């Protein structure tokens, strides 16, 4: 591919001009590199934390071909596990794993620990629990414990764990970790847990050769979920990628504004170059615009190189050694996320080029003689500018509100946020122009400063715009946080007479005012808790916050419903109330 001679000449000039004006170039590259480094770090950590379905599969499935998971309803019916075992294909092997939460007394307090009877020496369990030290517990007299459990309980390897509630008195024979939750306090017993005390159970199934997982799929039923390699671990990376790119887009939009401000501020000295290019070399507006674009592209490219270098170096030096600790699980090391990084690089260069192109476009329109004299004509700010700015912000606010309430297409929230920032930015020329009117009433040096700012609004305008953009982003960010917190209030403030029910595997939202628990029980779902005394459900709404999931990697965000049950009301009062984002059942 050959580069056209004009482009080659302009690229040379752009590169040399950047080298010639080192101060400005370093400033611009630094302004680009800093957010890029932060975005690179965020993207890499995000991707490392998300993990691929292949990474997560052993954590959920162990070495099994399928996992049949029972909720409490099934456990209440003692025959269910045995019934399922009888329906497995001939030649199958299954390991029955029970789990529960228990309060175990420590020296000064009770500690909540997860208790499981995973047989650590069984191949089907491989990957679910990792043995760090000692040997797999044998019989009722031995248990294994995670470092967090040992720390919380004040015990060490070889000590004896005593729990009356669990009916347990056992020596700690091993130190283990749950690779999916390194900070989890977990105790693995050497003997099976009694079914009556278990809160959940699962069968890890090894199918005989020739049997496909469809052979166990028919075991799905109310209160019983069947997981196979195909459906055990939904890929959360696309959703995380969208978030990363949305945040990156917004941040780089501001970077573009800041770059535009930096280029505009130094444009006065640059004007003489533009004048010479036009008068002596016969450059037209296209050439000037292309020169600005190339300068922005080069700065963006340099900013990307610098930002990526710094970001990746920080990840390597400071985050990689602690990546598992930070993620709270075994991540398998740092994942570079090439798609996200590639898009961040592309967006950065585009934002920087656009940021440089904008003042270049303005400069290209300046008459040659004014440019040669380094003069930039001062034009009045059109009266429609503030109106357009307010209208843009208002439209952005509406879109943001609709997006936050789950309406409209995907990305509406981002578009709304961008429009709000854009509206603020559009206000900048008008704000600066107002200073000129106010200047005459200001005393002495203030008048001088105000008038100087107003008269040089070609330079100060983009700077004020950049400041407004950053300020609006801060306001926007805090608004979003408040909005998200308000939407999460249901789980954040659970009263004593309430329980939270998290359901997954529900096909479609339960609707109508019928007995919702019955509806939910009629479908395969797993519940983290339910108020057995009432079974009353008053509110339900879509739930999206991954951090609140009871068990990581087991539920699809789209299929989740969080329900709240309250039992001290009249039947009429138990009907759903519409409040905020609450959805009527």
């Amino acid at each position, binding site marked *: 591919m050959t580069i*056209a*001679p*004009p482009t*080659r*000449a*302009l690229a*040379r*000039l752009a590169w*040399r*001009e950047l*080298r*010639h004006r080192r101060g400005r170039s370093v400033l611009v590259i630094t302004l680009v590199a800093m957010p890029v480094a932060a975005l690179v770090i965020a993207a890499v950590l995000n991707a490392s934390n998300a993990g691929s379905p292949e990474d997560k599969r052993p954590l959920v499935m162990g070495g099994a071909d399928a996992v049949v998971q029972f909720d409490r309803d099934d456990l209440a019916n003692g025959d269910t596990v045995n019934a399922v075992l009888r329906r497995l294909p001939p030649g199958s092997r299954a390991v029955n794993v029970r789990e529960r939460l228990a309060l175990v007394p420590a020296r000064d307090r009770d500690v909540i620990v997860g208790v499981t009877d995973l047989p650590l020496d069984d191949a089907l369990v491989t990957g679910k629990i990792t043995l760090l030290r000692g040997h797999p517990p044998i019989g009722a007299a031995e248990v294994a414990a995670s470092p967090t459990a040992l720390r919380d309980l004040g015990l060490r390897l070889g000590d004896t764990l005593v729990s009356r509630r669990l009916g347990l008195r056992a020596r700690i024979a091993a130190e283990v970790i749950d690779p999916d939750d390194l900070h989890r306090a977990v105790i693995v017993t050497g003997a099976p847990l009694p079914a009556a005390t278990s809160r959940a159970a699962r069968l890890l199934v090894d199918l005989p050769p020739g049997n496909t997982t469809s052979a166990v799929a028919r075991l799905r039923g109310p209160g019983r979920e069947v997981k196979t390699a195909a459906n055990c671990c939904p890929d959360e990376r696309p959703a995380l990628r969208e978030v990363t790119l949305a945040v990156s887009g917004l941040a780089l939009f501001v970077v573009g504004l800041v770059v535009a401000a930096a280029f505009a501020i130094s444009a006065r000295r640059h004007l*003489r*170059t533009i004048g*010479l*290019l*036009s*008068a*002596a*070399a*016969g*450059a*037209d*507006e*296209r*050439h000037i615009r292309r020169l600005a674009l190339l300068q922005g592209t080069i700065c963006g490219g340099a900013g990307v190189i610098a930002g990526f270098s710094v970001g990746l170096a920080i990840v390597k030096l400071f985050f990689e050694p602690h990546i598992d600790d930070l993620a709270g699980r075994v991540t398998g090391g740092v994942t570079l996320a090439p798609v996200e990084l590639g898009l961040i690089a592309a967006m950065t260069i585009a934002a920087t080029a656009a940021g440089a192109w904008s003042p270049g476009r303005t400069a290209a329109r300046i*008459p*040659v*003689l004014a440019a*040669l004299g380094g003069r930039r004509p001062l034009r009045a700010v059109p009266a429609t500018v503030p109106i357009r700015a307010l209208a843009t912000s208002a439209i952005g606010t509406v879109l943001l509100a609709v997006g936050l309430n789950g309406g409209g297409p995907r990305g509406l929230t981002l578009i709304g946020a961008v429009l709000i920032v854009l509206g603020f930015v559009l206000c900048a020329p008008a704000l600066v122009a107002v200073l000129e009117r106010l200047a005459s009433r200001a005393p002495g040096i203030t008048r001088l400063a105000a008038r100087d700012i107003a008269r040089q609004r070609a330079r100060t305008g983009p700077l004020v715009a950049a400041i407004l953009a950053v300020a609006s982003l801060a306001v926007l960010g805090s608004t979003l946080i408040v909005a998200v917190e308000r939407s999460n209030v249901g789980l954040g403030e659970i009263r004593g007479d309430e329980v939270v029910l998290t359901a997954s595997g529900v096909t479609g939202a339960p609707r109508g005012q019928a007995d919702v628990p019955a509806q939910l029980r009629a479908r395969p779902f797993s519940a983290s808790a339910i108020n057995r005394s009432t079974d009353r459900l008053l509110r339900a709404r879509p739930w999206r916050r991954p951090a609140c999931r009871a068990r990581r990697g087991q539920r699809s965000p789209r299929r989740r419903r969080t329900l709240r049950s309250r039992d001290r009301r009249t039947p009429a009062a138990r009907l759903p109330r519409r409040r905020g984002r609450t959805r009527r059942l």
Partner: protein
Amino acid sequence: MTPVLELRVVSRHYDDGAAAAVVALSSVSLSVSPGELVAVMGSSGSGKSTLLQLAGGLDRPSDGQVLVDGHDLADLSARALAALRRQRVGYVFQRLNLLASLTAVENVMLPLELDGIASRAARASAEAALAEAGLQGSTKRYPDDLSGGEQQRVAIARAVVGERALLLADEPTGALDTVAGEAILELLSARRDAGAAVVLVTHEPRFAGWADRVVFLRDGKIIDEAHAGRGSSTLASRP
């Protein structure tokens, strides 16, 4: 012979809303033929630079017509005007002529490259123009490393490279000593001899002596013209 530059009753006044407009040029008519060197003289504020800017298409006249190579500049779009400046008109300023970030040869080859000529061919032409200006050994030096006279010679090389028919020089010797000034005039004279039309704005009579014709401006009007042969005496009689 068809003139390369023709100004037909050209006026330029600046009206920025004040009660009285500033008249920079008033009903000026002038034509310059190929192979002719015309010097424009006058005191400060007489309209010399305005005349040159109108001739180079850097400014638009308030009234009248400016024709370069037969093209009325008023009829040309901004892009066509830029192309005309790139291909047919060379411009030399008094100072700060060159792009400081480009070497001498890169400054000279820039108009050719912007015109779409391949870099190698453009470089060859630029080096030839610099050699003609006596700067064979300075092609890779940056403007900051060149003396004032050398910078002007690079600017002239840039103004003549390609097939420029019209060379406009706005006090090119203003910031130079006598020897360097003479060298610049020799170069302009050589371009004239090569067939280019040259318009030289100067306020120094000794440099105007190189011209085939001298035009005197005062308050935006041409008040006199002197032709070669009697230029010296005419100039001597001027204040």
